[in-house]
């Protein structure tokens, strides 16, 4: 290797990944480049590289999750890091330990990265403030953000369509409670997509829609809202469906699941309105027959299964960048 490569930036600017509003386009593209290398590792017979040997990653999950936790664990293990899983059931939080004290304990254990999922929005930010040397990755906080899911969605779009810029992306469903959708709004906006949101009025995120009206240069000023799914899907390149959290019906946001499914469910009939090569995505877990018809979920346009593999590669790239990158000592 030459010792004097041009001094290009080779890690993202941040020590933590809490949401995508902090990453600019070149940060995201850098993660994508490293993800390409990680995909190659995933396709090998022996899926193990020594990149993070001797590093410790702790996953701290206060909320249930299968795919995200397993995906981080697998990512860490393929990179040869030691991965320790802590769930709220088995941790001292059951004994009443505060998140602050848990943070101090993890810091004292010299974890290189902590992956946290928490039911309260902002938990990752709080943890990041307490940490000197540990990187925090937000794996979902309340209804706020889920940046690695969004990165893998963006990467999936880029791989299937070649680019994200100017593609019409329709996000359908429960936008109010979806942290995936919120992170995707930032990521898709940064990458230059044309975003259309579609869902019942009661499940639209009024907070940001209102702030849009107050500010003239709001980053989300160009996002369209469309209540009729058939109109929304016209000419779509990407259809992102979101899980309808059935507890929402009890909260009075929906009259009935059947009505929701009829008005907003993505069916093969409706998919014909989108572009013929449009891809269909879902962050999982799916309610087949409610927000997405089974034929669509497992049909030729679905990239839902490839999203899972991509998820491991994206998390490898994120862990590798945060743990090995040269980031400024403290987050400003």
């Amino acid at each position, binding site marked *: *290797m*030459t010792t*004097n490569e041009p001094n290009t930036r080779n890690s993202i600017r941040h020590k933590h990944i809490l949401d995508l509003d902090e990453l600019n386009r070149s940060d995201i593209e850098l993660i994508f480049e*490293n993800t*390409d290398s990680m995909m190659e590792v995933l396709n090998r017979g022996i899926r193990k*590289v020594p*990149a993070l040997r001797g590093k410790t990653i702790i996953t701290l999950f206060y909320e249930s999750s299968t795919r995200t936790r397993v995906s981080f664990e697998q990512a860490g293990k393929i990179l040869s890091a030691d991965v320790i899983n802590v769930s709220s059931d088995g941790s001292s939080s059951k004994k009443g330990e505060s998140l602050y004290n848990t943070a101090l304990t993890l810091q004292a254990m010299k974890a290189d990265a902590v992956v946290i999922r928490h039911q309260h929005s902002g938990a990752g930010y709080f943890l990041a403030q307490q940490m000197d040397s540990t990187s925090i990755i937000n794996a979902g906080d309340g209804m706020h953000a889920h940046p690695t899911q969004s990165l893998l969605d963006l990467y999936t779009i880029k791989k299937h369509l070649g680019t994200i810029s100017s593609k019409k992306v329709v996000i359908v469903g429960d936008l109010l409670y979806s942290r995936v959708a919120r992170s995707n709004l930032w990521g898709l906006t940064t990458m230059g997509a044309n975003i259309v949101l579609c869902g019942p009025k009661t499940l639209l995120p009024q907070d940001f829609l209102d702030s849009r009206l107050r500010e003239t240069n709001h980053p989300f000023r160009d996002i369209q809202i469309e209540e009729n799914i058939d109109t929304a899907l016209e000419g779509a390149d990407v259809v992102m469906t979101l899980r309808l959290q059935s507890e929402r019906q009890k909260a009075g946001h929906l009259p009935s699941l059947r009505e929701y499914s009829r008005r907003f469910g993505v069916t093969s009939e409706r998919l014909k309105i989108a572009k013929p090569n449009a891809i269909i995505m879902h962050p999982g877990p799916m309610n087949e027959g409610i927000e997405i018809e089974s034929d669509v979920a497992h049909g030729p346009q679905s990239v839902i299964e490839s999203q899972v593999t991509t998820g491991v590669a994206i998390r490898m790239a994120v862990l590798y960048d945060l743990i090995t990158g040269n980031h400024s000592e403290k987050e400003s």
Partner: protein
Amino acid sequence: MSVKKIQTDVQMKRALTRISHEILERNSGAKNLILVGMHSRGVPLAFRIRKLISSYEGQTVDVGSLDIGLYRDDISEKPQATMKPTDISVDINERIVVLVDDVLYTGRSIRAAMDAIKDLGRPSQIQLAVLIDRGHRELPIRADYVGKNVPTSKEEDVKVKLAEVDGLDEVVISSPIT
């Protein structure tokens, strides 16, 4: 900073011609060979050697590319470079792998490359071809094929420029003015 040219495009061509012949001589032909270029400038060099070999032997040798980002032993000390995917699509078991790089210096990249190759299979041999050997080894590693030996000091920088990447072929050495 003083910059001196230590290899011209013609000299580089002659060096690669000789290396290609040496590879064929040492391995009694092109059979069973696979050239693996190390990112970034080893890759175009590997393709050039393949072209030369096929012009002598009429046989096309497999070429792969290797990124050692995930195998470095100094990731916490130096900022890592953006990785490029490793692309070795053929089976390397029982083949003769010739690693190709532009500059051989401490030998640490080659150590990392051998670890990376080992994860992909078990070649019968691994050989090393470099355009420039500038000395200062920190590991017991040597090259089998060397374009040019250049005595350097550690303060100096050796830069290989290739038409495919930099628009021209030359090797320059730059030393800081003290």
